[in-house]
C-alpha cells in the first residue's frame, strides 16, 4: 500500500462516560488509515492512539467482525452502519471515505436503546421481545425426521430471508419513530412462514407486539428507512405479515 492511498481523517466521536452523563462530541484526527481496513479497524487505530496518549479509549460494540453477530452498531455520517448498503459496520471498508473527510460517529439513538457508554447502547429490549415469543416450543423425545413436514421452496426462502435479521437494531436507530417493527416482524415471519411455527403464531404475534409497545418503541409509519438501512436487507413486506398475523390473532380473541 502506497502512502498516497492512505487516508487522513477527522473523526467527530460521541463520548459519554455513563448512562446519566450528558455526553458530547470529541474531535480526533487519525492518519495513515489503509483504505482496505474495515471501519472497526480504523476505530482500533484511534483507540491505540488514545491509549498511547494516556486517554480513555472509545467504547464501541463489536464481536464477530464478519457481519453475522449483530453486535456492531454506530451511526456514521447519518447512516446506520455507514454509507454503504447491505453491510454491517464491521464490513464497511474505509475505501468508502476520502482523505480529508470528517466522519461523525454517533451511538444508536432511541428511547428503547439508552446509551451505556460512548457508542455502546443497551439493546436488551430485543432480548425481552424474543423471550415472550420468538421461539418454537419443542417436546423432548426422539429426534424428528427432518423431511417429515414438507415445506415449499418459496416459503422456506422467505423464512430464511426473514431469519437473516441479526438483531443489530439499525431499524430502530434509523426509524424516525424509533419503531422496532422491522425486527419484530422478521422474528415473527421467520416462524410464521413455517408449519412448525404456525402452532404458536397467534400467541407469538400478540405477545411480541405487546412487549414491543411496553418497552416504549414507536409506531411504524411505513417510511421504509429501516429496510434501506438494514444490513441484511430485511423487507418491510415482513411488517405487512406481522400486521396481518397480529390483527387476525386479535380478531379471533
Amino acid at each position: 500500500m502506497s502512502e498516497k492511498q492512505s487516508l487522513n481523517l477527522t473523526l467527530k466521536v460521541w463520548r459519554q462516560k455513563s448512562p446519566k452523563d450528558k455526553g458530547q462530541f470529541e474531535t480526533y484526527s487519525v492518519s495513515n488509515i489503509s483504505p482496505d481496513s474495515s471501519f472497526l479497524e480504523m476505530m482500533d487505530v484511534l483507540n491505540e492512539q488514545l491509549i498511547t496518549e494516556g486517554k480513555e479509549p472509545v467504547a464501541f460494540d463489536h464481536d464477530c467482525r464478519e457481519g453475522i453477530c449483530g453486535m456492531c452498531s454506530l451511526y456514521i455520517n447519518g447512516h446506520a452502519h455507514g454509507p454503504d448498503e447491505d453491510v454491517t459496520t464491521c464490513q464497511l471498508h474505509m475505501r468508502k471515505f476520502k482523505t480529508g473527510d470528517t466522519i461523525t460517529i454517533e451511538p444508536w439513538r432511541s428511547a428503547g436503546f439508552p446509551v451505556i457508554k460512548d457508542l455502546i447502547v443497551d439493546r436488551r429490549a430485543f432480548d425481552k421481545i424474543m423471550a415472550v415469543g420468538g421461539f418454537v416450543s419443542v417436546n423432548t423425545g426422539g429426534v424428528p425426521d427432518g423431511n417429515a413436514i414438507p415445506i415449499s421452496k418459496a416459503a422456506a426462502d422467505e423464512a430464511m430471508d426473514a431469519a437473516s435479521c441479526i438483531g443489530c437494531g439499525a431499524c430502530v436507530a434509523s426509524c424516525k419513530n424509533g419503531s422496532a417493527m422491522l425486527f419484530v416482524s422478521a422474528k415473527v415471519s421467520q416462524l410464521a412462514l413455517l408449519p412448525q411455527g404456525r402452532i404458536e403464531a397467534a400467541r407469538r404475534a400478540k405477545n411480541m407486539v405487546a412487549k414491543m409497545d411496553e418497552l416504549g418503541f414507536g409506531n411504524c409509519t411505513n417510511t421504509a428507512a429501516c429496510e434501506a438501512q438494514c444490513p441484511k436487507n430485511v423487507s418491510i413486506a415482513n411488517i405487512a405479515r406481522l400486521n396481518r398475523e397480529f390483527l387476525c390473532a386479535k380478531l379471533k380473541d
Partner: protein
Amino acid sequence: MANLFCSSIGKKLIMSISGLFLILFLLFHMSMNVVALISESGYNAICEFLGANWYALAATMVLAAGAVFHMVYAFVLFFNNRKARGSDAYAVTARPKHVEWASQNMLVLGITIGAFLILHLYHFWAKMQLVELQHMMGMHVSEEAMALATDGVHWIRHTFTSPINTILYVIALVAIWFHLTHGFWSALQTLGWNNLKWIKRWQTVSNVVATIICLGFAAVVVVYYIVSIM
C-alpha cells in the same frame, strides 16, 4: 379484541381505515366536481340532492367523524413516536435512498390539508349545507342566501375568480397528492394486505389514485379561473 385499539398496530388500524374512507370520499367528491365541467345544471342537481337532507346530513356526520378520528390519532401516534425517538437527536441525518419524502412528512402535509379544509369549508359548506341547516332549524336566513345554497356553480365561480384562492387550492392539492401517494399503500400495508410482490404494485396504484384525484380537482379550479379572466 377489547384492547386492540390500545396497541400500536390497533391505533394504526384506525389511521388506516379512516384514511381509506377519506380517500373513497375524495374520489366521490372529485367525480362530482368534474360534473361541473361537463354540465353546470347537472352539478347543481347533485348539490341539491346533497343539501340538508337526512341522508346527506348523516353522511356528513360519518365523514366528519372519519376526519376527526384520522386527525386525532395522527397526533396520538405522533406524540408516541416523538417519545420513542428519545430526547437526543442525531447530529447528522441523511434520508436513505428509496425513502419517499412524503412518508417522512405526513404530519406536516396533514396539517397543511387541515388548514386548507377550514378555508374550503368556509368557501363552500358554510354557504351551502350550513345555510340550509340554519334555515331548517328556524334561524333567520335571507332569501338570497337560501337561493344560492344549492347553486354550487355560483360558489365555484365566486371562489375561483380570485387568483389567491386559485393558488391556495392548487397548493393544497399538491399537499393532498403527496399525502395520498404515501397514505394509500401505507393504509393497505397496515391492514396487512401487502407482500413482496405487491409493495411496488400498491405504490404505483397509490401514485395513480393520487394523481387522478388531484388532477380532477385541479381541472375544475384552473378551468373556472381561466374562464373568469377571459
